[in-house]
């Protein structure tokens, strides 16, 4: 797909609690639809592979979804893929590269049209690059201090915590994990 200006007129995606409403997804395999976002919650039903659902919101590793029969429940986020099922994919079945904010999540926003060319970062553009010292110097003027970073985190109620890394098999790593 090339740069068709009409793609900037993608339907508005409303943002709710970190997930875009009106996004669709489908199950990768037979998946439990849970009553609550917990592994030991009641299973409402089992959704077959490639069941299309509407995504209501994301909550940690869970997605609250609505089935075509309007049943609400939770499925593991990683058991879903966004967009339409592969066989049903057409030009509208993919996630818009313009993303959730292609139009503003706020109702008052106006639709934006693209009036110029797309600014790419293709392999060709990378290979044609000439080092740009002025931009590099400018980048450095935006540097944050550790104090600013910590103050902003505190303001957002983000607290640092100690967590280990995990290996491919899901087991905690000892050598490079555990401590900061």
């Amino acid at each position, binding site marked *: 797909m*090339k740069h068709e200006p009409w793609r*900037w007129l993608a339907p508005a995606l409303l943002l709710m609690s*970190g*997930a875009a409403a009106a996004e669709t*997804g489908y199950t990768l395999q037979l998946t439990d639809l849970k009553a609550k976002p917990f*592994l030991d919650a009641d299973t409402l039903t089992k959704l077959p592979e490639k069941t299309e659902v509407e995504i209501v919101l*994301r909550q*940690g*590793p869970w997605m609250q979804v609505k089935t075509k029969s309007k049943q609400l429940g939770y499925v593991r*986020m*990683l058991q879903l*893929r*966004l967009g339409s099922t592969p066989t049903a994919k057409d030009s509208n079945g*993919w*996630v818009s*590269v313009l993303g959730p*904010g*292609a*139009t*503003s999540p706020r109702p008052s926003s106006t639709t*934006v*049209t*693209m*009036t*110029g060319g*797309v*600014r*790419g*970062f*293709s*392999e060709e*553009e*990378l290979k044609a*690059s*000439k*080092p*740009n*010292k002025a*931009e*590099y110097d400018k*980048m450095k003027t*935006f*540097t*944050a*201090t550790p104090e600013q*970073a910590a103050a902003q*985190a505190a303001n*957002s109620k*983000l607290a*640092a*915590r100690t*967590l280990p*890394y*995990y*290996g*491919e098999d*899901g087991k*905690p790593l000892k050598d*490079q994990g555990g401590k*900061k």
Partner: protein
Amino acid sequence: MRPLHALGILLSLVLVTLLVACANGGKGGLNLQSVDINQLVQNVKGLREVSEPEEIQIGDGVTETLLGARPLQDDVELQRYVNVVGLWVARQSERPNLPWHFAVNDSDYINAFATPGGNIVITKGMIRVLHNESELAGVIGHEVSHVVRKHHLNAIRKNSAFGLLMQGVQAGTGNRSQDVVNALAGPTKELYARGLDKSDEFEADRMGVVIAARAGYDPWGLPAALQTLAGVNPDDDYVKLLFKTHPAPSARLEKLAVALGTNFDSVTGGPQSNDQFLRITERVRAVAAK
């Protein structure tokens, strides 16, 4: 670099140097007097560990080439915001004291790049597809992990011109050397068009989740961002370079599903409010290329 590989190159260098010496000696015998020991030492130095100041200098050169392909997004508030969020995330890594710099470039294409020494460039197109600050922190965590594990530095070290490059870096450390920047342009373009080993990307995903979670964010931000990318048409120009240089998002999600399992089910997080992210990123999400 694997020890055997390094040893092979070292032996090759010694052999070439001796052959050159023989040729120069001209009398048929081995003339050790004419072996340029200094040159040999310089070449061998190309195989040693790179010091942190040298790594930073290499990373700065790489960054100049990345920003040469597409300049910074003209948005001071956004640039300061990604630096504050980015530094907070990077401070939770094993290399908290690097001179971390973060930048959003003026590209509609979806991508993000890390350089040795702690420079991270995120495209405007990437910012646009993120839903919230936890997803941004996850993407940053992935890039920070590349720096922590020196993935790009080690890839650049495998470049055949690395020995020569290091001589310039050594001479230039402490002072900015345009020669080093120029010498890095070729290897930078080659590496960032080719990408890292897939195993490096999978590792950066696993570590990125943890680093963002250490910073207090929702650990599922990076998987959520990957889930968005997994739904993008891979034929789209916007993701072509990203998809060429990384494993497919669906493959990354499958690996993460195994590595994360239920390890983070009790780890919640995220900023208290998403208002700041939405407000600051609104301009790049709502305003198209002029």
